[in-house]
């Protein structure tokens, strides 16, 4: 059983397709990194899953049931765009309202529990409007976490946060997924951050899912490369090309792809009169993989 199974989902706004027959599969227990450029349809997909938008066509199944099933939806927590809190009410009151909304029996205990998870036990009396952006995002996560959700839908939960806020949020997200065992969908632009926690990825472009893969598959597809710096970069590039198939230049370094043995690279360069000042082993990350994929799609 998958946590989310979307088939041929379409949604248009004033005749413009935001989602075009999108397919998406999120396994139970996954941390699904949902990636795409601005306006690619990430938020629209999340809003459709949460029932905020009405689809033009297609189907959405959550844990094998239709997404309109009340039993499933009551176990969905969401943070989409903002926390959805009343600005003049306190953090505590906002969480209590959500606890009542979810018909939780031990509301106060539950509210304290989620406040602890997001490290805001001491800030519950503050009015929501007085909270910082980072605090608001954490309150949004707390709202979504009430009632032990089976599925968490998070839209850019780390956007706009400072470095410390980002670190806290990342720790919270890891804590949620490790210790509370729910399936999480995170739409984010911050691929470096996403790479640290995601177990699966979905890459969306112009309303279509162009690739879905697990972190292991991603790892397998990621090319290893050696980054090299020499005095004469152009001369070294020509020399390297005589022995290695895939050599390029990026970000001020020469890159030799699919070559694990840095010794043979250094040896070859030395033999041809080039002294290596810097060399390191690297792997193509999510960000580079994504950029390459997007460039390939644009080329098509």
């Amino acid at each position, binding site marked *: 059983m998958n946590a989310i199974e979307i088939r041929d989902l379409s949604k248009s706004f004033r005749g413009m397709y935001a989602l075009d027959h999108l397919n998406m599969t999120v396994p139970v227990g996954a941390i699904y990194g949902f990636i795409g450029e601005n306006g690619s349809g990430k938020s629209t997909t999340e809003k459709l899953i949460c029932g*905020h938008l*009405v689809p033009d066509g297609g189907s959405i199944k959550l844990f094998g*049931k239709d997404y309109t099933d009340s039993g499933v939806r009551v176990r969905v927590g*969401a943070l989409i765009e903002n926390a959805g809190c*009343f600005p003049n*009410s306190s953090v505590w*009151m906002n969480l209590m309202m959500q606890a009542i*909304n979810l*018909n939780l029996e031990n509301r106060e205990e539950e509210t304290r529990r989620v406040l602890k998870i997001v490290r805001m036990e001491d800030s519950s009396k503050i009015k929501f409007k007085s909270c910082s952006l980072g605090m608001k995002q954490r309150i949004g996560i707390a709202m979504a976490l009430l009632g032990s959700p*089976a599925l968490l839908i998070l839209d850019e939960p780390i956007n706009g946060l400072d470095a410390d806020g980002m670190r806290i949020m990342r720790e919270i997200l890891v804590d949620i997924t490790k210790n509370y065992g729910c399936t999480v969908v995170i739409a984010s632009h911050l691929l470096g951050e996403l790479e640290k926690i995601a177990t699966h990825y979905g890459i969306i472009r112009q309303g279509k899912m162009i690739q879905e893969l697990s972190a292991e598959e991603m790892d397998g597809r990621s090319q290893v490369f050696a980054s090299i710096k020499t005095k004469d970069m152009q001369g070294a590039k020509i020399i390297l090309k005589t022995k290695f198939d895939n050599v390029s230049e990026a970000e001020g370094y020469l890159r030799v792809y699919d070559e694990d043995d840095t010794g043979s690279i250094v040896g070859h360069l030395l033999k041809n009169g080039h002294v290596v000042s810097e060399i390191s082993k690297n792997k193509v990350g999510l960000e580079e993989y994504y950029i390459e994929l997007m460039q390939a799609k644009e080329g098509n």
Partner: protein
Amino acid sequence: MVAGNELKFESPRFFTRIKSMLGVDFYRLFHTPLFYIFLLIAAFIPALILGSGGMENPDGTTSALLYTNVWNAVAANMPLYAFSNIGEYANMNMVFIFGGIMVSIFIGHDYKSGYVKQLFTTHAKKQDYMISKSITCAFAMACMCITYLLGSVAGGLFAGLDFSANVGSLIIAIASKMIMSLGWASLYTFLNVIFRRYFGISIASSFLFGTGLPIIAIGMIFGNEAGSVLNIFLYGSSVYACLGSNIVTLIVCLVVSAAWAAIYNMLGTKLLSKSDVY
């Protein structure tokens, strides 16, 4: 998977769903100043109208009494769909005008704050929202009827007005108007769902319907004799609840209020189900 997060999905029953949604709305109603401000407004207006009648103006003249009997501030002596002076119009029905504004603000904040997203994420059935808002806002308006009554009594005592009335008819009139709150609240909820993206238009439309202008216009054209037909409308029935009320009035108000509440809830549910939340 941790024990607290098993994959069991039991669909909550209708009453459980409504209970939780009502719980949120009542919690919010009682914990925010809006409700109390409108209760005070509802008390203050009749107290001001009655209390200031007959008082000496700065220029030495005396302001005219709008009412000689305090209960005319609550309801007219007879159903007056078309009126000849403001005293025949300005009674407890004004609660439905303030009530409309209160409902617009109450529901508008759901959308403005984004809290509606939390509600619709966890409540798949849109009828829960319509029913809950209608009941909560009807309760708020019924409470406003009570503070309006208290304000009238206070103003009447201050101005030394006549308190004589047929107690039975008076109680039925007040009870009937309170019952009408349900129909009015459902109308306002529906209007606010239609204009959910436009807060100002929501308030303006609630105000327009609350004043009863469309019914008053028909009353003006066809005269008060058209009353029995106009009673099928919310404003008509609200006017029908007068100081000459009897048990038939109560039944008419009950049926009309319940029928319109059902219609507006059904239409609102349909609209929410077929359109995007925001």
